[in-house]
């Protein structure tokens, strides 16, 4: 058992004692009841379980939760799918996923929301050329499995968010 504190969507949880062999996914789903983060494979293959980790250096990244112990997140700040909409207002990316019919069954959606959001935030800091955009989106989605959609409408939604604000995300041609 290890004492553990974590900030999730801005709210601090803990310190609390958890088993060293408890996965972060089970901490979220079984201990906190935060089931927006899904369990798909338990093997870091589908990333339905991915959350955003906000590192102290100001950068953010996604991390699976199924193959990572909860205590590995001790002291960290994370965001989950439940944390994107503010006061019932969807984020720009969430809205794009809805209006593009990006998902079908929706079970992979939390992972795509988090991955897409991290990508947008990274591009805002490090814009890329228009010509690299599709490859960059594809690379960022490639760790995620979606069995329903063929990924196309996720890809297009992210691309449209970028292109709608190309000053922010893309370098000047």
């Amino acid at each position: 058992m290890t004492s553990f504190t974590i900030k999730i969507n801005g709210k601090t949880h803990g310190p609390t004692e958890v088993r060293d062999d408890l996965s972060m996914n089970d901490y979220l789903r079984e201990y906190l009841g935060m089931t927006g983060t899904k369990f798909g494979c338990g093997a870091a293959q589908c990333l339905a379980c991915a959350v955003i980790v906000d590192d102290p250096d100001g950068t953010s990244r996604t991390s699976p939760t199924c193959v990572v112990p909860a205590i590995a997140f001790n002291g960290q700040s994370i965001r989950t799918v439940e944390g994107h909409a503010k006061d019932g207002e969807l984020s720009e990316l969430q809205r794009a996923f809805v209006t593009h019919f990006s998902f079908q069954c929706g079970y992979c959606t939390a992972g795509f929301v988090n991955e897409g959001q991290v990508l947008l935030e990274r591009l805002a800091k490090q814009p890329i050329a228009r010509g690299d955009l599709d490859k960059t989106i594809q690379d960022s989605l490639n760790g995620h499995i979606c069995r329903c959609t063929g990924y196309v409408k996720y890809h297009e939604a992210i691309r449209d968010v970028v292109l709608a604000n190309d000053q922010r995300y893309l370098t000047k041609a």
Partner: protein
Amino acid sequence: MNLLVARIAAVGLAFAAVPAVAVEVVAGSLTAPASFAGIADATARSAALFNEAAKVMTHPRCVNCHPVGDRPFQGDSAANRPHQPPVVRGPDGFGAATMRCASCHQKANFDPGRMPGHEHWHLAPASMAWQGKTPGQICQQVKDPARNGNRTIAQVVEHMSHDTLVGWAWAPGVGRTPAPGTQAEFAALLDAWVATGAACPAS
């Protein structure tokens, strides 16, 4: 008796009636340097010692992350499969910006999730690709400063003998076959190889 049952196999064997499936994995052993004393010619002995040590270097635990190309491999057999999800070495060997090795591979193995881990989990440089190579080719590679990161042989041996990421190959976690022998036995073979002139096998 040249088979050594790994730690996790011992757990499995506690069940007398358990079938030989599931996670029981059996590691090979390494022959101690002393056993090579009978080879009179020092160069031949040196090459033979390297050959024995190469059982480790050609083992899936090592080759999987010494791939030809930019994508590591996975699995426990000679016909290993490309790593899923499809990751690449990236500029620093620690993965691309969108998928860093450390996203999944934490500081240590996490057996409940069957996830191997180490603090410095990353790919060997492309110049040190061992996949599909013979012991002789690997030997030349290891000795070549242009390919081994400009290291002396002593530095290379030190790395292989004591680096803890290398050492992970002998404690790879549930469901993965460890490299043969122990890291100490491996180090002893490399020391003996250097002491006999660090000769490379012909093939």
